[in-house]
């Protein structure tokens, strides 16, 4: 009987100790927030264009974490889908055409300044504050900050905003993948 009591007591004590340890570590090493959301957000291109149907990249990242499809981001393109698929360990799927097409070259917008009436509508639409200007005064796009999301175009009442492709120059040219003359090369999509 005494043996039984000792055994029970030992086990109970042990269980309590473990429980206490677990409880302590769950408080001490608690992970703030949901790191997956941040990790996905890191992989999104941050154009904040809303083509995915969410009001920005972070909301879309949250949606992906909750099970939304990963193929709704045209600016991120195939590479973006691949990166998210790798992170979440899911299959790579092709880009959802309903969301838009992937543009190979980056673009920015420019305001035809003499036509601008200074309505500030585009300023309100810009998700990254890349348009400077004030009411009744001419607006202009800060090119280095523009993400090319094109969200400013629909609100403009006088259609004075144009999309401008960022031109390839000697400075931003990068070496292409060597075209394999080898017979062994794994076929890869050549981006021209």
């Amino acid at each position: 009987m005494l043996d039984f009591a000792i055994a029970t007591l030992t086990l109970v004590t042990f269980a309590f100790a473990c429980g206490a340890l677990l409880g302590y570590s769950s408080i001490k090493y608690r992970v703030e927030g949901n790191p997956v959301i941040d990790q996905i957000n890191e992989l999104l291109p941050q154009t904040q264009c809303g083509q995915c149907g969410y009001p920005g990249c972070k909301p879309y990242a949250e949606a992906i974490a909750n099970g939304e499809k990963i193929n709704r981001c045209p600016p991120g393109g195939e590479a973006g889908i691949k990166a998210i698929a790798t992170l979440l360990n899911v299959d790579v799927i092709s880009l959802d055409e309903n969301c838009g097409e992937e543009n190979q070259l980056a673009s920015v917008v420019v305001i035809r300044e003499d036509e601008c009436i200074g309505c500030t509508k585009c300023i309100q639409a810009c998700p990254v504050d890349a348009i400077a200007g004030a009411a009744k005064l001419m607006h202009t796009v800060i090119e280095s900050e523009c993400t090319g999301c094109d969200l400013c175009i629909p609100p403009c009442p006088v259609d004075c905003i144009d999309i401008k492709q960022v031109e390839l120059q000697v400075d931003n040219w990068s070496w292409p993948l060597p075209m394999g003359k080898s017979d062994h090369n794994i076929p890869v999509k050549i981006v021209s």
Partner: protein
Amino acid sequence: MALSSPFFHQSLSTQQIMLITCLALIPGALAQSYFFGYGVLINLCLCITYAISAEALVLLLRKRKIKQVVSDNSALLTGVLLGLALPQTLPFWMSFIGVWFAIIIAKQLYGGLGLNPFNPAMTGYILLLISFPVEMTAWLPARTIASHFPDFTETLQLIFFEKTAEGMTIEYFRLITDGFTMATPLDYIKTEFTQSKMRSEILSNQYLTDNIYAWTVINSCYLLGGIFLLLRKIIRPHIPLSVLSSLFITSFILYQFDSEATNAPLFHLFSGATMLGVWFIATDPVTAATTPRGRIIYGLCIGFLVIIIRTYGGYPDAIAFSILLLNLAAPTLDHYTRPVIYGHQKEEQANE
């Protein structure tokens, strides 16, 4: 499409490397066919044909340029190595299985030349050894001690019909003049050891010493071929030298403990497939470790394993097993033996 520098190239091509390796095997192959008859040459022809046909077939299925890829001579080399490793009168369909397995499963299914983790020739050899242990150990005695040495037609008949026109099977030809069957020296001595015979007693058999002589000559010829490769800078000394030294040291230590129940170090170096394996198979660049330090460890481990398996294991020769085991370890060895990059410190690089 712009072409990047460099525009200058001066070295042997992959085709040439493979071809020169094949050529370096010629002295060994000639010695082997001198002692073991036409079977060696017939096997070589069969295996080369099988290897190239298998390679071409897979390339056809994979829709690759057949001529360009087959001309890299790697299938040729696999065929030659297997042809030399198989017993002389192995039935033609067995060598077919071995070679096709080597080329198709062990090489092409992984993506072809350069992408196979295991040496194709040795993988094919092991497959055959495990599937057909009797046939794969049925080596003829050397010409010098055989009672009935098969001529060309008899060899052909043995290979294609498994018996001669007179109805003689391979067992008949394995007899030596005193009426006993002779296996390879390694095999023979191992069997005798298991019957608790003393080494000096075993070696007093004149037929055995004659057979050992034949194998020593063959191994010396392979050694010559290997040195030729070394001088032509086709291979680098790290692997062969470390295998040989490890073989010698391990067997020397064991020999010191019990010289009557273990083989002498020099016997290990010049018997069985040692020299063929050391100079031509362990040095296969695709499946070996690639860093200098990695290659030394790779070689040392192969030599150690060969002696351990030969002494304590179930197989008389262990070159193929040891090499395949170390093939498995090669990526790990490479990972942990990365050289220190110029201008870096050892510690900081390890943390990366």
